[in-house]
Every structure is written in C-alpha cells, then in structure tokens.
C-alpha cells in the first residue's frame, strides 16, 4: 500500500480559555478530540462540517500553524508535528495553503510579483532572480492570470482574480499538497465554478493532493474523492464521496444532506426544531450529536461512540447504531 501523503493519528487540540486570575476554574476548549485521517496521494480529501466543528483547526494543525496538544501528524511517513521552524522549512515548500477570503489573505501593499516571489525567496534561497521570474511567469500562466498583473496591487482585482493570485502563490513553490480552506465561499456563484475548475485542472497537470475544507456538500459531490464529516472536533463519518450521498450512515450526515436546499423545492415544507452545537468547553459525556439526534438512546448519552468500519461498505462512522 502507498504511504499516505498526510496522516494524522489521534490528534487532539485543546485551547485554554482566558480566565480571571483568581478563578479556580481552568476552562479548556476541545477543538479537536482524537482525529485520525490518512490522505492518499492524488486525492481531493474533503472535510465538511458546520462552524465550530474543528475543520479549520485540523487544516491549520496539518500545516503546522498550530501545534497539536496530543497525537501525531505525518507527511510522507515522516513525523512533522514536533519539528521546529528550521527543520520544518524544507517541508513548507511541499505543503501550501489557500485561504477563504482573498480580500484578507493578500498583502494590500505588495504587488503581485512580490507576493508570488516571496515564498520562493524564503523557502528556496538558492534560486536567482531570473529563475524566480521564470517561476512566477509559469505559475501565472498556469492559474489563468495575465502577465500584465505582475506590477499591480490587490485592490485592482476582483474577488475571483484575487483568489487566482492566492492560488498562484500557493503553487509557486511547486507543492505536492495543498490545504484549501473554504476557497470559494467568499465568491459569487459564477466565479465559484471558475475557481473549482481551475483547482481540478491544476490537480491533473501538477499531480496535486488537496485537503479541501468546506461547509458545502454539493461541492464535495462534484469535487471530492473521500470526505470526513466533522462535528464538535470529532470525525463522525469517513466515506467515499459517492457513498456519502448514496448511503449516508451517520444521523448527522443525514441531517446535513437533508438541509441542502434542493432546486426541485419541497424539502423545507415541514417545520424543523431548533438545534445547536453543544458547548465545546463542556461537551456532553456521550455522543456529541446526541442532543440533536432523532434516533438517540440512553447509551448515546453516556458512552461516546468510536469511529468504526460499517459492515458491507467502505464507510466508517462514529455511531452506536449505524449499519
């Protein structure tokens, strides 16, 4: 079997919340509790979930922007979560990130050429100016940007053009793996399709592997190979993209699918009860989804289900009663 390009083993992320200095309580927010995923080369691995489920935290932990409280992260079989800044530097060129909001992720005072040259200068100091220039021109072509953009500043571009520049910046060091955190949510519908097509084309021409973080399941259906559905810092279901739509196993996945507005209409006709995420500082002892679950039993409130393979399928689900 191939070595996964990215593997996480029981990654935990806890944040201590600010407290009053006299307070005895030390509240801790569990952003990730025991996340284990393995991403194979060439995949478009999607992470879906609602806000606060830990999907962005997972992406940031893999990129090394956050250090896990416990657990291990591997890149091509090498453990990377404990590396210090200088030891990590050679790997950084291989792993890059695209952020949600291209209005915030580009430095407004830096022109496109400098934005794109910066990662090369930092991560590949051996390259001379001519090589950097050639690399920048190459990546601008690959992402559908015009060469005349090089001397322009971000405010001269529309949202879709900015996101192309952000993608070009991620590609300029020739990475193998890209974390894309909601790369199309801030864009208009007609622009979303342009960016999704660009990401698909780049995957084919450059052999990229994606970790695609999104809240939109319809994007997963079109784009993803496998998908992890997260809820309150845990993976609730791990499945092939086509299976998650045809045969969802976890009740939470079914709730998510049911909530997608359909072009045929009619699925919002019944009133729905208000549901909300439990407090991540004091998570319930059992299944985090138990308070909203329609098939909840006593066992769910006391015992937290582990991610387990479901019989006769390639899916894993964290539910006592999934089958």
């Amino acid at each position, binding site marked *: 079997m191939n070595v996964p390009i990215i593997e996480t083993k029981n990654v935990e992320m806890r944040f201590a919340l600010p407290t009053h200095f006299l307070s005895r309580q030390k509240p801790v927010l569990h952003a990730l509790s025991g996340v284990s995923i393995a991403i194979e080369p060439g995949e478009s691995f999607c992470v879906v979930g609602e806000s606060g489920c830990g999907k962005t935290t997972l992406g940031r932990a893999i990129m090394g922007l956050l250090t896990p409280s416990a657990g291990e992260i591997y890149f091509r079989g090498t453990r990377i979560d404990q590396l210090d800044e200088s030891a990590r530097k050679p790997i950084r060129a291989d792993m890059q990130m695209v952020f949600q909001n291209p209005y915030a992720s580009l430095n407004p005072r830096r022109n496109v050429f400098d934005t794109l040259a910066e990662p090369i200068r930092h991560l590949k100091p051996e390259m001379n100016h001519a090589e950097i220039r050639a690399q920048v021109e190459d990546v601008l072509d690959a992402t559908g940007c015009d060469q005349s953009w090089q001397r322009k500043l971000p405010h001269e571009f529309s949202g879709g053009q900015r996101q192309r520049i952000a993608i070009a910046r991620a590609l300029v060091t020739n990475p193998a793996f890209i974390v894309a955190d909601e790369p199309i949510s801030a864009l208009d519908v007609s622009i979303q399709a342009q960016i999704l097509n660009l990401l698909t084309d780049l995957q084919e021409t450059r052999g990229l592997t994606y970790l695609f973080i999104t809240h939109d399941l319809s*994007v997963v259906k079109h784009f993803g190979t496998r998908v992890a559905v997260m809820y309150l810092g845990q993976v609730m279901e791990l499945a092939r993209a086509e299976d998650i739509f045809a045969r969802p196993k976890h009740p939470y996945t079914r709730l998510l699918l049911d909530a997608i*507005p359909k072009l045929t209409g009619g699925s919002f006709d019944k009133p729905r009860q208000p549901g*909300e995420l439990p407090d991540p500082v004091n998570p319930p002892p059992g299944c985090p989804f138990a308070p909203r679950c329609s098939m909840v039993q006593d066992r769910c409130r006391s015992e937290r289900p582990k991610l387990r393979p479901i019989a006769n399928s390639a899916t894993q689900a964290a539910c006592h009663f999934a089958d």
Partner: protein
Amino acid sequence: MALLEVTDLHVAFPRGKHHEVEALRGVSLSLKKGERLGIVGESGAGKSMLAFAILNLIAEPGRVSQGAIRFDGQNLLEMSEHDIRGIRGNRISMIFQDPMVTLNPVLTIGTQMVETLKAHRKISTHEARRLSIEKLKLVAIPSAESRLDAYPHELSGGLRQRVVIAIALLTDPEIIIADEPTTALDVTIQAEIMALILQLCRDRDMALILITHDLGVVAEVTERLMIMYAGLCVEEGPTQRIINAPTHPYSNGLLKALPQNSERGQDLYQIPGSMPPITALPSGCAYHPRCEFATERCHVSAPDLVNGIACFHPLKADAKAPA
C-alpha cells in the same frame, strides 16, 4: 390589485461633481398579497439596493432619481418621513443578514421587542411583553418567557435570527423583506430558518421578498423569481419555470454553473469574466461581454424586459419546461 408595485425605479449615486452613476437602472416588480418573490443576483447586482429603496432607506448621497413605489395605493416616495414610519417596520418589516448586527448588544431581547411595539402601537409595557412572548413562541424559541431577559450574545446564531424574525413579526406586517437572512448561518440552521419563514408566510398570508444569491433557497421558498444583473432585472417568472427552463443566457449560466447540475469528473460550466462594476458598464446589453450568444445588436442597444425576459436572443424553453 397588487399590494406592492414598483415601477421603473432608478437609484443614482454622484460620481465626481457633475456626474451620476446608477445602481438601479429601471426595475419594476409587483407583489400580491401572500406572494413569495425571490430576487437573485451576484454581489453588486443591486438586489439589496432595491430592498432599501422600497423602504425609502437609500442613504445620502444616493437618491431615487426616477420611478414610483406604490404600497396599498400610496406612493412611498412622496410620503413624509413621519408617515413612512407608519409603514416601515410596521406594515413592511425587514430581516437582515447578520443577527449580531441587527440586534443591539447592550439591551435585552425583551427591551428591544417592547421598544419596537411601543413605537408602533399605543399599548402598556405589560401588554407588549405578553405579545413579545407570544411571537417568540411562534418562532419556536424554547422557554420563551426566560429568553426575554437574555442578551443577544447569550443566544446561538440560529436563535438570534429567530429573535430577529420574531421582532419583524411583532406588528403583524403584510410584507416581509428578507435580505440574505441565512447567509451568516450554517446549513442545518439555514434549513430551520427558511422552513420557519416559509411556514409563517403560508399561515399568516404574508408576502415575502427574499433576497439571496442561493438558487436552491429560492427554489425551496418562493413562487416567483427575479434574476438581477448590473442593476436590471434580466428575467422574471415562476420560480420552477426559470429553474427548469431558463430563457436568459445569464440565468442559464448561473444554473449550469451549480455543482449539483453537472456530472462528477466533468468540468463545471463557467461564465467567463465577472460582473462589471456600475461605474464601467459596457454599451448595449450589460451582459454581452460574457454572453456566448451576443451579436452586433447586443453591443449597440439594450433589450427591454418584455414578457419576463430582457434578451434579444432568448433560449428556447426546452422539453423540461412545464406546459
């Protein structure tokens, strides 16, 4: 007779000392009692501007330069600020995108609801509180009595938006204008809120103007649909007819670009380019630079909205179209 009738509405903003640009370039709509109308467009198409104009809320230096807005026989544009307050927030209510911005963070929910009621009705505080609790129960807020003394930050995003809806319903309005009411919310919460709005409109025979960029949401909730592009309505008609058989190339492009509407593994259909800013509109039809059917005529003159379509080369309604 229509409850609300907007005819040939133009909204202009000054540009330089002697020039003006138009954010709305002649939009008409009519809304019957109890009818649900969706307005869809990309950011900058003028859909929020239309909502603000209907409520006479266009801020300086912008102004309504032409047109009429008739509500129940009166022209809202010719009414005094005092008279329009009897309609705005009373007979026409509005729900905005972000409940955290709509609600005052330093006042309790109860104070804000009582204040709203007392501004429009001569009633006692006690009676106002009773009515407020009634409306909170109507929007399915659990333990409504105790929530009256809660501050907005103590509620989750979904509950906050339910409170905003309860406030909009306080005066039993005839029209609700909802401007992207669920864009800031998660998908499962969006489904709850939209199902609630749909149910309330049906039960109370309330008209709805739903402004959104999400075609799935309008398909679920509305009966009639307006597609806006660059300050104009380009197509108007029954929601399911447009979604199944769009006749304007832009509506067609928007629908084809949705990931739901394309095969897995194939490129998404993409509309080239992006919507022009109102300061740099092309000649003729504003959509012609992006349109695959554009001819010489489209460069020169702009098509009028005739029979719900503003295009010289409308697409043939295909076999899927209902009779």
